């Protein structure tokens, strides 16, 4: 017998008493491995202790009560089918609700996406205007713009007349 077989015998002893043949093999192993003797004895002691665990008391009418409860359960097909009907009625409505909610989420997402696209497009067009402004002529050209703007229209005509001479 080797170490593995010894372990297998020990695991077998957790579930059941060893057979005479197994016991003999084990004793032969322990004779040449005295260091394993203490462990084996403690295993055996624990097995004995666990064997002593008593059965928990069960009510004498336990079986009768369980069978009665099962018979009651079986005798309620009407109530159960009503519940099933309610479930059948609720489930499609629940599915419809889920579908509406999914649609609402999609519409909201589309609206938000569109608003963001519009904002981006507007900002892009504003950037184009700014970039165009960057290539305007020297600001000195419009230095007297305000003064010229304030000149009365009549004076302009007079000026044109002078210039046209």
């Amino acid at each position, binding site marked *: 017998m080797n170490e593995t077989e010894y372990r297998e015998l020990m*695991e077998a002893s*957790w*579930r*059941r008493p060893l057979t005479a043949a197994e016991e003999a093999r084990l004793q032969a192993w322990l004779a040449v491995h005295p260091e394993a003797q203490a462990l084996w004895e*403690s*295993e055996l*002691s*624990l097995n*004995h*202790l*666990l*064997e*002593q*665990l*008593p*059965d*928990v*008391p*069960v*009510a*004498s*009418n*336990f*079986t*009768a*009560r*369980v*069978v*009665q*409860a*099962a*018979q*009651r*359960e*079986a005798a309620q097909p009407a109530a159960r089918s009503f519940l099933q009907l309610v479930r059948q009625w609720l489930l499609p409505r629940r599915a419809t609700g889920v579908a509406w909610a999914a649609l609402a989420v999609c519409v909201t997402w589309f609206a938000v996406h569109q608003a963001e696209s519009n904002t981006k497009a507007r900002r892009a067009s504003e950037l184009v205007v700014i970039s165009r402004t960057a290539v305007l002529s020297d600001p000195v050209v419009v230095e007297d713009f305000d003064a010229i703007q304030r000149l009365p229209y009549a004076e302009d005509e007079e000026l044109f007349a002078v210039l046209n001479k």
Partner: protein
Amino acid sequence: MTERSDPDAALMLRVREGDFDAFEQLVEKYKQPVMNLVYRTLPDATEAEDLAQHVFLQVFKSAARYEVSAKFSTWLFTIARNLCLNEIRRRSRHPADSLDATFPDSEDQPMRQVEDAKAVPAPDSVMRSELEDKIEEALSELPEKQRTAILLCRGEEHSYEEIATILGCSVSATKSLIHRGRETLKQLLKPYLRTGEWKEK
């Protein structure tokens, strides 16, 4: 696994056809081991019995979906363990609620009739009872998986493969759980292991 190799599976197939006698036979056969497991997971005799009853009702309700793919007892103890775990979870969320809140139909049933075996303890049974209490106490200190593995391992009802299925882990993990649990038990019960007190009782 077929109903021929597992007579309980054959009974369960009869339950599926609405045979209450077959159901009664299954309850009668398994009430004690189920009760032992449930009580040692939820250490309250009344609530453990309500839960054990619910385990069998669950078996009855699930009969229509039952298929002979595993040993009946493996299926039964998987249901029992799952219901115990649900109850532990429920208690942690609603500690003040009794089990009747979970299984309200249990109130409509006849009173329990438990033989009071410990009503008048004989003097020589006092020490045995004390030792049993110590073993129960030590078991209750183990993590749930280790305790369940050790309890299912006791006796020859379940193979390691079946215990592994009930616990939802591999066979090697199951053996490891049992080994660790047993090591803890040895530590907790050291005085009793050393003196061999159990042997005299």
